[in-house]
């Protein structure tokens, strides 16, 4: 369960990109480099509900740290997943709960993707990750 780009890298890159095309090109790139979830994990039990595209999530606790793997059939959603994983992956449950995702997405000017009315399910994904962390904290 690897991470494609670190949060620091993502932050730096976003700072350099001023127009929407470049930002989306980067999100799409992140999406392309996100490792695929093995097919056997793409089952109903792992689906994150509330997304227009399909999103799957699996997790395990390793040495006290939560490791997540997510995938989607939509490329932009995969890019957003890469950002979520950079922020929330490979952390203890308590650390996951301490991250302020709202302000991160605000900073990246991606806030509107977190709004619950958006079909991409980013808000649902973050909620699901936090639920898992809460159970294990």
């Amino acid at each position, binding site marked *: 369960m690897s991470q494609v780009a670190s949060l620091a890298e993502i932050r730096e890159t976003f700072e350099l990109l001023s127009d*929407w*095309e470049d930002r*989306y*090109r980067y999100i*799409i790139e992140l999406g392309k480099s996100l490792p695929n979830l093995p097919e056997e994990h793409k089952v109903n039990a792992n689906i994150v509900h509330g997304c*227009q*595209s*399909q999103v799957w999530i699996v997790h395990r606790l390793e040495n006290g740290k939560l490791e997540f793997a997510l995938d989607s*059939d*939509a*490329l*932009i*959603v995969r890019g957003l997943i890469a950002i979520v994983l950079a922020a929330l992956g490979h952390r203890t449950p308590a650390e996951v709960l301490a991250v302020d995702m709202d302000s991160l997405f605000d900073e990246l000017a991606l806030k509107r993707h977190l709004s619950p009315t958006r*079909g*991409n399910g980013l808000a649902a994904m973050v909620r699901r990750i936090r639920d898992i962390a809460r159970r294990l904290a």
Partner: protein
Amino acid sequence: MSHATNITALRSDFPILAERVNGQPLTYLDSAATTQKPAAVIAAIADYYRHDNANVHRAAHALADRATAAFEEARRKVQKLLGAQRAHEIIFTRGTTESINLVAQSHGGHRLRAGDEILVTELEHHSNIVPWQLVAARKGAKVLAVRVTANGEIDLDDLDSKIGERTRIVAVGHASNALGTINPVDEIVRRAHDAGAVVLIDGAQATAHLDIDVAALDVDFYAISGHKAYGPTGIGALYGKESLLESMPPWQGGGEMIETVTIEHTTFNRLPFKFEAGTPHIAGAIGFGAAIDYLAAIDAQALANHEATLLRLVTDRLAQTEGVRLIGTARDKVSIVSFLLDGQHPHDVATLLDQQGVAVRSGHHCAMPLMQRLGIPGTVRASLGLYNSPADVDRLVRAVEKTRALLT
């Protein structure tokens, strides 16, 4: 009355079209979800609240008279729009969905027996499937679906093979919201009546585009939404044949729909009030009436030509765009095009179009059985209204090209 023939000039009647989104001028291509509203409709709603607001059919004061007169006048406008013979055959509802639920619960609940069949099609919106499933489960009836061909047309041979002596209700859309297909409703009504079934037509996507004449169609029920035809949300109507509506039990109970009430027994009001429990959406009905007036003032032939020209243009331009695959190529269509871009997810495409100011819909369009039938997860849908122009089509096509470059 002189009818507006210059359709292009009508765009300026819609204040919202001057909005900018994501820093871009708005190209609104999601009219099948809901149309934008002309200033006349917005003004009619505001004027009602400013000058005439009161509850209808009750109080003996001047405002109540005005509100009631305006509300009932709106009913007559809907009657005229649909070609109904009697105003009391028009029931105000929240929209198409509520109209269909009313028929399913009241007529279906009253008439259906175990083993009876309700026939829908694979083209239907969930609103014309799920209400039938609910009543079917309650009554032990069955919902069957007529097949749709690969180009998105109802397979009439399959209709013939599925319609039979157990068929009680045939429920079919006038035009498909997902693909735009215009269905041969007159033919379907004829075949259903030959088999002794009652027919409901979901007219949600027809109202803004097609001439509707329920009397000539001889259809039993016709369901519409105001907001799909330049009117406000929250208001719609059900047309029902008088004899059928008379035979149906009330659906919801409350004020307005009663004649006398004792704790033991209630007698019900006459049509249409029997089916309009509670305070209705008075402002909505008046706004809907204003939308009907607005449409009536436009030359119907000029409007049809305008939309047909745009549909041909958007279809041809998209067909020539690399990577685009059109979904739904029926011969007769309202101004809706569905498409896929290479192997890209419709949601990705719609997100990038939105960044360019182009508002489209992506997904299954509340027609999951149709998507399953076509073997696709969904589509990108551009749907056009009277205010769209060739420039909008051009912006869409350019935005699709840019989207493709970004995604591949």
